[in-house]
């Protein structure tokens, strides 16, 4: 491999910088988890927010080191040897190149902001210390995931974020529905994990290594490895569909809105759901040599984007709209990955982290202001009462809708351009579906904005009376994120990542369309804005009239295409029947219980018979003994 890797641990930098980045949040988890309840809220807040901020600063230092080392350099740090057998072994090693740098900066940066926001949002929650402990645990696993050099370490983080998200989604576990949402997220993720594991095993079997840089190098080598890149690619992509909520494993994400809102911002917008994108981008060496797998990624991505956007059109819960919008945006990212524009996908991860975190936290601020109300049909007119939330929310909405020059415009425009023109599987159909998604995104986001903030109030009088702007810890974070959503797009991230993640070539005959498509993209965003304004400017009436015109379509969208019901009918019911009748009824009750009970009954009956011999009569015993002895003697005499 020509890429220069420099060890982080040399004389000039004696400390293990990358290990420190990973371990800081773990320290926060331990401190808050073990001592938090005893030492009070100030301690919890300082530890909970301080350690992620320290991790962010350490990441910054690592980025400076990396920049000094050159565009395609990487920092490498072996923390310790995990297992060794023969001449092979597994190391826990951390690997830091530009891709990792971007991901780590997002995770620690946006993560720290969300921690700060949480100090305001969760202020009165009795589980304050537990909440921050989980949040730090999540950051620890997420950092393990992106910093791990080998797929195995990555998998530890991968499972760990699943665990942490389970804990956080089910944070208010007293409510069975919320606990169930946590379980659903965990189990759905496990389905994807099976694919991840199989891909990992296959790679190790074929290449003898699970270090991701070496895997990329092996696939780029002139002699192709003895394993189908498509098969590995599809298996790993199955893992990614679980974590990143793609069809058909997207069902957990909307339900995961049961957790506290900052959790949704952290896990379901900025970090965990982007793990799948990260994995595919990191292993782009495989996908570059697997056109079939790439096509699967692109098609699944664009379908997810499209269908999730249609569902978001009719949702009435403010967080559900954002949840489906997240699924949809993740679909667009996979579309970019599928057409070979890996850097562009990471670019969208990066802009999406800002505006979607801002939207979720803004939604949290609205919910906070309304004392728990989440139904947008019962909101309206909030912009006068909570102006800071409104302005930041509006900026983020415009950013996700793709209105220039905000961040979302740049990344989404590039995704659509490469979906159209990439030599690596681009096609007008992908572009058309992507653009339709962009149109719907713009529409439902402005619908959300109108219904929540701008239309005349539909709140009950009492709720309206209590509406109040959130504290500075929350609004300050919103302002920072809104500013980042506004200007984040000016940073040419795909170009920054180009030494690692090549930008695909464009079909020559299509090159001259580039400017046209930019205009189309802007027009689409503005069209969505105009349509939403027309429909919802005065309130719900026009939207409800439209729903009444197409009742069946509205029902299907409202029922989320009945995917949950389908899973229940196809998977849950047969499995339940088999478990109940075959495994429980036949296997457990009849076979295992039956044989054990049978043994017990047999023993009891036999001993009942035998105990009659025990008469209590001494003479009888003596007679038995004599008969026995005589019997023995006779036998010895006959056979001796």
């Amino acid at each position: 491999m020509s890429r220069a890797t420099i060890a982080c641990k040399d004389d000039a930098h004696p400390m293990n910088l990358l290990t420190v980045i990973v371990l800081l949040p773990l320290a926060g988890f331990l401190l808050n988890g073990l001592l938090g309840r005893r030492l009070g809220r100030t301690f919890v807040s300082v530890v909970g927010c301080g350690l992620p901020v320290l991790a962010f600063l350490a990441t910054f230092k690592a980025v400076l080191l990396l920049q000094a080392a050159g565009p395609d350099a990487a920092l490498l740090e072996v923390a310790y040897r995990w297992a060794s057998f023969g001449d092979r072994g597994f190391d826990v090693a951390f690997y830091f190149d530009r891709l990792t740098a971007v991901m780590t900066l997002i995770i620690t940066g946006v993560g720290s902001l969300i921690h700060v926001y949480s100090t305001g949002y969760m202020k009165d929650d009795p589980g304050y210390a537990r909440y921050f402990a989980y949040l730090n645990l999540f950051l620890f696993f997420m950092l393990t995931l992106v910093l791990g050099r080998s797929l195995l370490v990555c998998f530890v983080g991968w499972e760990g974020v699943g665990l942490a998200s389970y804990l956080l989604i089910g944070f208010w576990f007293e409510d069975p529905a919320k606990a169930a949402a946590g379980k659903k997220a965990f189990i759905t993720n496990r389905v994807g994990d099976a694919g991840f594991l199989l891909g990992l095993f296959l790679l190790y079997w074929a290449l003898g290594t699970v270090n991701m840089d070496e895997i990329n190098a092996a696939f780029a080598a002139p002699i192709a490895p003895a394993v189908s890149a498509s098969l590995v690619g599809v298996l790993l992509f199955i893992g990614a569909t679980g974590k990143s909520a793609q069809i058909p494993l997207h069902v957990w994400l909307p339900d995961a809105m049961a957790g506290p809102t900052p959790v949704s911002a952290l896990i379901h917008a900025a970090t965990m759901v982007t793990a799948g994108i990260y994995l595919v981008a990191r292993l782009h060496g495989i996908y570059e040599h697997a056109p079939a797998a790439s096509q699967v990624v692109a098609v699944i991505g664009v379908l997810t984007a499209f269908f999730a956007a249609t569902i978001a059109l009719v949702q009435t819960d403010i967080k559900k709209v954002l949840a489906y919008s997240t699924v949809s945006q993740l679909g667009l990212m996979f579309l970019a990955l599928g057409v070979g524009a890996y850097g562009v996908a990471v670019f969208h991860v990066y802009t999406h982290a800002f505006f979607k975190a801002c939207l979720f936290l803004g939604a949290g601020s609205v919910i906070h202001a309304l004392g728990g109300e989440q139904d947008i049909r019962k909101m309206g007119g909030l912009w006068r009462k909570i102006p800071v939330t409104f302005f930041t929310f509006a900026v983020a909405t415009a950013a996700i809708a793709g209105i220039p020059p905000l961040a979302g415009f740049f990344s989404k425009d590039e995704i659509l351009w490469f979906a159209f023109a990439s030599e690596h599987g681009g096609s007008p159909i992908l572009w058309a579906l992507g653009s339709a998604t962009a149109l719907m995104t713009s529409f439902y986001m402005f619908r959300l904005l109108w219904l929540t903030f701008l239309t005349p109030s539909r709140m009950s009088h009492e709720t309206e009376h209590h509406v109040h702007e959130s504290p500075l810890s929350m609004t300050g974070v919103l302002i920072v994120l809104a500013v980042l959503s506004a200007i984040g797009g000016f940073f040419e991230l795909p170009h920054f990542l180009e030494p690692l993640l090549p930008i695909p070539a464009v079909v020559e005959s299509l090159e001259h369309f580039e400017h046209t498509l930019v205009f189309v993209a802007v027009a689409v965003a503005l069209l969505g804005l105009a349509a939403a304004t027309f429909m919802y400017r005065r309130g719900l009436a026009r939207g409800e009239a439209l729903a009444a015109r197409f009742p069946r379509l509205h029902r299907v969208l409202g029922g989320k295409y009945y995917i949950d019901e389908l899973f229940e009918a196809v998977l849950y019911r047969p499995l339940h029947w088999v478990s109940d009748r075959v495994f429980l009824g036949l296997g457990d009750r009849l076979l295992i219980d039956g044989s054990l009970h049978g043994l017990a009954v047999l023993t009891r009956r036999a001993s009942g018979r035998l105990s009659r011999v025990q008469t209590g009569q001494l003479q009888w015993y003596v007679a038995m003994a004599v008969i026995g002895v005589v019997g023995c003697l006779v036998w010895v005499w006959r056979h001796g």
Partner: protein
Amino acid sequence: MADTQLLLGLSFVLFALGLVGVMVRRNALVMLMCMELMLNAVILALVTFSLETGTLSGAVLVFLIFVVAAAEIAIAIPIVLQLSRQRSSLDVEGYDRLQG
């Protein structure tokens, strides 16, 4: 030779007497005495064989049996005493509370 036969025959008769006594009599004390009789029959046989073969091991075993018999009686007599106090009878027919 005839002495040996005679002694072994005597030993057998003594053993049979003791065995029949244990099996037939109901009085606990008499049963204990019959058991002693059986032990003594065995001792007699051991001594006879010891003489016959000219080795000492049989005679040594006899002393062992003396000790065991003494210990046995030392335990058995108090048990019989306790039982007879409880039931005010020595009849073993009455001691059937340990039946299954």
